[in-house]
């Protein structure tokens, strides 16, 4: 069980921002922090890792106190067992993939930990290469493997997939989910991609300007209440709205597919291009066929 609460004044683009957050995560959960950039998501990860100190706050991880501003306890980043995947991956350019992983070993740890991770994350062919010669996805996998070397109690992922193309993104989401389950990790993922949050997280918190405005499972938050009886739900971005004979038609980008939806429930144009929407349908006539 991991509990934390933070208060911190941050200097943001639009002036000062108060970050305020209370949170509880069960072991093995994957929590997503969702929100626009500048909402304070990364700062939350940095405070958990000890790279930033909140004005007031507590962190308790599996019974151990990492931070308590009232008692003046504030463990250094070195003493907190976190794995951190940075947005720019922060791989050490002077070391090979293998050396990057080995650098993370504690003195008491066996060198075989690195071998295991190289095998699980399929870095065998890349292990003697320097980060500069790797593709974005390969660098991301290396960063993920390195973050796992110390067997962290908390894995922190800071928009880990934002620099990758769609296909690579999907593949790496699967990798992250696989290691998350295999190592029974407790993970916090920062993302501004709703599809990613949907796919990956058990629980999500939406941050707006430093405050949690809602939380719950992704399905509850983004679809549950509005369209209760629908059997089929998709989240996407509106790319086109048109009105033909009084009937609205909306084109929605879901993942990398465009979906045409006759929007029977719309009576006026409160939906515009760029909005994020939930598409719900009742499937009366579903057809599913396999693609060879």
């Amino acid at each position: 069980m991991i509990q934390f609460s933070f208060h911190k004044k941050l200097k943001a683009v639009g002036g000062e921002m108060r970050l305020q957050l209370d949170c509880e995560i069960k072991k093995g959960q994957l929590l997503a922090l969702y929100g626009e950039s500048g909402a304070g998501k990364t700062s939350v990860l940095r405070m958990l890792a000890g790279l930033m100190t909140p004005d007031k706050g507590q962190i308790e991880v599996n019974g151990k106190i990492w931070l308590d501003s009232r008692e003046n306890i504030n463990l250094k980043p070195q003493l907190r067992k976190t794995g951190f995947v940075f947005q720019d991956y922060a791989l050490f350019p002077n070391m090979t993939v293998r050396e990057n992983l080995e650098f993370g070993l504690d003195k008491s740890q066996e060198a075989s930990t690195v071998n295991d991770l190289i095998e699980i994350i399929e870095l065998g062919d890349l292990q003697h290469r320097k980060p500069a010669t790797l593709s974005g996805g390969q660098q991301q996998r290396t960063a993920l493997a390195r973050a796992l070397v110390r067997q962290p109690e908390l894995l922190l992922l800071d928009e880990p997939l934002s620099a990758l193309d769609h296909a690579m993104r999907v593949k790496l989401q699967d990798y992250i989910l696989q290691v998350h389950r295999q190592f029974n990790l407790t993970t916090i993922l920062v993302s501004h991609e709703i599809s990613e949050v949907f796919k990956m997280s058990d629980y999500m918190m939406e941050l707006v300007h430093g405050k949690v405005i809602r939380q719950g499972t992704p399905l509850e938050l983004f679809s549950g209440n509005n369209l209760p009886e629908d059997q089929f739900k998709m989240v996407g971005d509106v790319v086109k709205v048109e009105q033909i004979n009084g009937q609205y038609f909306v084109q929605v980008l879901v993942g990398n597919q465009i979906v045409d939806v006759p929007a029977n429930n719309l009576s006026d144009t409160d939906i515009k291009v760029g909005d994020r929407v939930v598409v719900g349908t009742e499937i009366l006539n579903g057809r599913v066929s396999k693609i060879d």
Partner: protein
Amino acid sequence: MIEWDPIILTFELALVTTVLLLLISIPLAYWLSRSEKKMKPVIETLVSMPLVLPPTVLGFYLLIAFSPNNAFGKMLLDTFDLRLIFSFEGLVVASVIYSLPFMVHPIQAGLSNLPSSLTEAAYVLGKSKRTTLFKVLLPNIKPNLLTGIVLTFAHTIGEFGVVLMIGGNIPGKTKVASIAVYDEVEALNYGVANAYSLFLFAVSFLILLTVYLVNGGYLKRYWR
């Protein structure tokens, strides 16, 4: 005839100065690249002063400070048996101060330009500041270290004013090549002066050329 003593002495001085400055500048540059203290600009200014100050000014104050007639110089002589005027040791101390910016600036620039996430990644992996500095930061600023080492070496070879002020012109002890040139010109031995000068010119050219070849990646491209 050309004597080798001044040339050997020049290289000895440059080598000792470079080694000492490397040891001093790494912690100093690291502190300057991290610190947000109020006194940081003052320290930065002091480090940069030798760039703009006439060498004679620096030499003059060092001469006053190191003189056994004054408190500091007397203290050095009494407690460490160290006499810093008209001695090789004095030249080393003066050179270290005089070449300080040439070593500190490239290292500081290198450290400041590294993304802070590298340091943070190492901390999160449980590594101390020291391990991070030596295993992560310094290996990734090798071109800057090379620039600092070579510039310091070359700059010390080219020293004149400071050396003359506090070292004088004692053969085999403080008479370095640049002083020897001056000395020979005074004695109207233009041939010998030319020999020393040509030598200094060639050495400085080669040293600087090496830096540009290595840091510009020209050598790597050529050897591949």
